[in-house]
């Protein structure tokens, strides 16, 4: 089929869904009760684009194809066109966005059942998909930025979806404001690029990195990376993501795990030729990624809220992806985006299923007259859920093993590839890569431990909620479990698209051949010196090390938490002492920002800006107001029925016009 036609409908269907759901719900209140209608429309407009993308994928010729729908505006050199690029990178991202997106829409049909804002939810979710597709398909930075802002807006709307709770609104505001900082940097990067190159389409800006001076290039890449730290939750702008868990769980799965938060990595992979030409900035990227990864992993160990564990885990995994980017392994970062989308979406949806069940428990307890409140997200009140929710338990376990990196699961291949690339980059003489590699190894171990901890505390052991013999949760409906099964299957086998180099000398690494520039793809790679003959043994050794760390971590976590349960947290706390306090306090980022930025800002506004506002701004505004009101008085005087005065004004105008035109 004609690819222009396909691209058009891939983009238009989610938009149409957003408009239909939004307008239908807003203007036809009677329709709001018809949940199935919104659910079916909302899911179909994402599922059909997935099928269309598959067709595009299957008939892809190997040549990047740009579809220009039309030029929105052209001013001087600036040419803003709605142009979309179909190539290996955008295809793989679009497959993930629409595929995982469709599953999560299906899941939401069950999860959001009974919510009064059902129509609104699907309208926002469809709009998000539309914006995300603009982001990954856009052929120039303005369209990408349109999508970038669009997903930010949808993220804001969906985090604050239950806006009557002030806490949720605050979380939404935090996400929005923190992202603004990153977006500002992104804009600055665009300005520099436009000023230097006079164009913003990828064809031009990626053609020759040498067209920019080295310092300009460094600035552009650094600013783009700062933009990415906002969207993709890295130090120092990651603080919004854990709070973003206030949104409904499908939102956390779709936006804050599988798709939107990976857009920073997509951006860097898209401009990879520029990034590679700025090695100092690459070091910054890798080190920030590594620090974020280990920091978030240590926090995740101490969290008791099931969604927060997953949120910090996401931050940590994103850190892994930036590590890959920072050592020039862009295709591996995208590989990890790909596998992470499956297992992390599955974990989030599984946690949603658990929360769904625990809500039922809370509800029943309340009916039975039980006093007190249980938090349906707190793992301390869960336990032994595998007995009641077998499907959720199995899929959660499979995804846990995948993220922990147990051999042959998807996470094993992508994570090991990252560690290998870091090692190889260090081996080729880039010292900072050694640091990254070591931090990566430690983080991998921590990942296995905290993920197994969350699985065991939730699904094994004894039931810890009150009146457990009378009140039990039950398995979620099929619309929720089917996506879980599909995602967990993909989490198991998804890694086979990127078999490591030790097998057939990397010839079977499909994703490398698909994306990599040496094979005609869009993602650039550094040129490394050839390694000696003994390197194959080192590669094998690294794979064994990675496997041992994953298996060891899982084994340790399982033994510790299955035997001791919650008590083991205390043991860790005693063993690590004040360090544990630091982890539990989340390294006090929020407090530090509050002290250093928020409070001074508030005090400054009170002391400085408020008087400025009161005297200077208000003075000007009121002054203008007085002047206009004074003018109004004059006008009113003229308007006391005396048309003569109006005529006088006309005569005045006549004098002015004739004066200028005759003598001017």
């Amino acid at each position, binding site marked *: 089929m004609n690819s222009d036609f396909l691209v058009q409908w891939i983009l238009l269907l989610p938009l149409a869904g957003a408009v239909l759901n939004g307008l239908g719900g807003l203007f036809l209140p009677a329709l709001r009760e018809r949940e199935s209608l919104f659910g079916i429309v909302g899911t179909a407009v994402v599922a059909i684009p997935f099928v269309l993308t598959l067709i595009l994928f299957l008939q892809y010729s190997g040549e990047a194809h740009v579809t220009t729908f039309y030029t*929105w505006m052209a001013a001087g050199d600036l040419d803003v066109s709605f142009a979309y690029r179909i190539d290996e990178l955008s295809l793989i991202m679009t497959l993930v966005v629409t595929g995982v997106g469709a599953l999560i829409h299906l899941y939401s049909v069950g999860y959001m059942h009974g919510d009064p804002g059902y129509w609104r939810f699907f309208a926002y979710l469809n709009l998000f998909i539309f914006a995300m597709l603009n982001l990954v398909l856009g052929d120039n930075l303005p369209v990408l930025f349109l999508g970038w802002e669009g997903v930010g807006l949808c993220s804001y709307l969906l985090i604050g979806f239950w806006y009557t709770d002030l806490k949720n609104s605050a979380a939404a505001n935090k996400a929005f404001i923190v992202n603004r900082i990153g977006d500002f940097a992104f804009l600055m990067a665009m300005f520099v690029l436009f000023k230097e190159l006079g164009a913003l389409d990828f064809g031009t800006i990626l053609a020759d990195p040498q067209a920019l001076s080295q310092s300009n290039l460094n600035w552009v890449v650094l600013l783009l990376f700062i933009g990415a730290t906002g969207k993709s939750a890295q130090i120092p702008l990651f603080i919004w993501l854990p709070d973003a868990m206030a949104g409904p769980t499908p939102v956390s799965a779709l936006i804050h795990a599988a798709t939107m938060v990976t857009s920073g990595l997509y951006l860097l992979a898209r401009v990879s030729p520029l990034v590679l030409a700025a090695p100092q900035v690459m070091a910054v990227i890798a080190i920030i990624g590594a620090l974020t990864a280990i920091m978030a992993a240590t926090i995740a160990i101490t969290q008791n809220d099931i969604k927060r564990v997953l949120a910090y885990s996401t931050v940590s995994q994103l850190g892994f992806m930036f590590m890959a980017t920072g050592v020039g392994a862009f295709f591996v970062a995208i590989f990890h985006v790909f596998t992470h989308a499956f297992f992390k979406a599955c974990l989030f949806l599984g946690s949603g299923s658990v929360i769904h069940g625990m809500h039922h428990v809370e509800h029943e307890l309340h009916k039975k007259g039980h006093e007190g409140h249980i938090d349906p997200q707190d793992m301390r009140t869960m336990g032994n859920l595998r007995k009641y929710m077998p499907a959720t338990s199995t899929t959660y376990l499979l995804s846990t093993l995948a993220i922990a990196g147990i051999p042959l699961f998807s996470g094993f291949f992508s994570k090991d590839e990252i560690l290998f690339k870091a090692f190889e980059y260090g081996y080729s003489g880039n010292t900072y890569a050694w640091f990254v590699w070591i931090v990566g190894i430690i983080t991998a171990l921590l990942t296995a431990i905290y993920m197994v901890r969350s699985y065991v505390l939730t699904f094994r052991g004894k039931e810890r909620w009150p009146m457990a013999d009378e009140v039990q949760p039950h398995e979620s409906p099929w619309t929720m479990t089917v996506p879980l099964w599909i995602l967990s299957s993909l989490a198991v086998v998804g890694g086979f698209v990127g078999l490591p180099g030790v097998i057939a000398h990397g010839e079977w690494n499909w994703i490398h051949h698909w994306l990599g520039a040496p094979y005609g793809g869009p993602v650039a790679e550094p040129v490394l010196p050839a390694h000696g003959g003994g390197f194959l043994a080192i590669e094998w050794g690294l794979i064994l090390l990675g496997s041992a760390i994953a298996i060891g971590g899982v084994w340790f976590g399982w033994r510790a938490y299955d035997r001791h349960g919650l008590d083991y947290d205390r043991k860790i706390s005693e063993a690590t002492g004040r360090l544990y306090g630091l982890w539990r306090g989340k390294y006090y980022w929020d407090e530090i920002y509050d002290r250093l930025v928020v409070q001074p800002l508030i005090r400054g506004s009170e002391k400085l800006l408020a008087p400025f506002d009161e005297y200077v701004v208000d003075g000007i505004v009121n002054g203008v107001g007085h002047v206009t009101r004074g003018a109004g008085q004059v006008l009113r005087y003229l308007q006391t029925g005396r048309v003569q005065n109006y005529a006088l004004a006309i005569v005045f105008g006549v004098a002015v016009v004739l004066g200028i035109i005759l003598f001017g």
Partner: protein
Amino acid sequence: MDLTGAYASLGSDLGNAFSLVLLSVVGLVMVVWDSLRNDHRAIPWIGVAASVLAISFELLRMPGPAEKIFYGLMWAGGYASFVNIIILAATAFTLAISVHYLDRIGHNYGEVYSLVVFASAGMIVLGSANSLITVFVGLETMSICLYILTGLVRTEEGSVESALKYFLLGAFSTGFFLYGIALLYAATGTLYLDEMPAALAGGAGSEVLLWGGVGLLFIGFLFKVSAAPFHMWTPDVYQGAPTTLTGYMSTASKASAFAALVLVVYHALPAERWMLVLAIVAAATMILGNVVAIAQSNVKRMLAYSSIAHAGYVLVGIAAGTTAGYSGALFYLLVYTLMNIGAFGVMAALEWDGHVGQKQDLDSLAGIGYRKPLLGVSMGFFMFSLTGFPPLGGFIGKYAVFAPAIDAGLTWLVIVGLLTSAASAYYYLRVLYVFWMKSPEEEAAPALDQLMASPLSMSTSVVLVVCAGLLLVLGIYPGVLESTTLFFSDSAAAVAAIR
């Protein structure tokens, strides 16, 4: 002059002037219908049907080049078709939203609709004129109908007063206009716009006669488009007239007067001497309109000042003196018509007791958005578009008039335009703030409940949705803007050759 076959020639041109002929005939039919039958329910819909028919005709004619008809008195096709479409669309929208509104205020007479149709016929003559006499005939046909429409609510003092003011001042400015025509004729020896450059090149007439005539002619136009300092009738008249008809006056009559002004400067005037005066008037108009609008608490009055400000933006495009500026001005008129008819339509739908319109201040509208989401959302489109937010038509419109002005070296004027339109966000968005973010006071609630009880009429809803939708389309899809540039490209070379 050889008059052999004159009737045959005029008769064959009737087909080219289809819209004009159709509206004139339909207007007469409406008057007759109203006097013979006591039932005038069908009358507005006859007018709507005629307008829609005429729009489809003009859409077919628009791609072709403009040609002279009636012995060179008027243009048809191309440019003229585009102007006619704006006028006809404003007519159709106004008729459709007026039915229920005039019912509510108790002044639903059949002749109102025929007057609107006659006024539109006058506007078509004005907006596609090629002779100064045609300009004058069109201008007066339009104006007389508008004077009557302004005074429609006979029982109310304000309405009658504003009609009389409009009439007196209109007559005053017409005097200048006629003098201008006379002086121009004296200077060039012709009344045909496209013959003037040749006559001037021949060295006929004196500078003072020519430029004095141009200045006086401009005054007539500037009065009609309510540019400062000829704007003073505008707030009174707009506030006194029935709201839907205010929407009509503020859009269609300005569009046709601007269109005629563009025809004059494009076809007739040789040098760039007139650019400065239009630029200064544009700056004064934008500043005055926007600054005074900020101080208004009555929404209709605010919209009156806003329409003054928008006349300033259109003048910026014309003052650029390039074909790109003219086409930008034309595009702006289309966008402006849609957003202003829409905004006045929303305000008309909110006048629930028929009298609040003149006093309707912002506070009485608190929380309307939630009670009437269609009005609230469509008002959002109109206000954002008037402010000039992307991706709505108002943004592209401002871009279309400002960019040519910069190319023409009028950077200072564009800076004034940008600053004042930034200030305009204050009073436009305040409307939305009141609509959506304020809760109604206790006393206002009963009146609002009454409003809730009467659903929006189907025709009003359709018009508002169509206006809002078209604004979005014009903002995202720029094809229309490109097509307006074509009106000037085909004959530009020929005109340049004459100069």
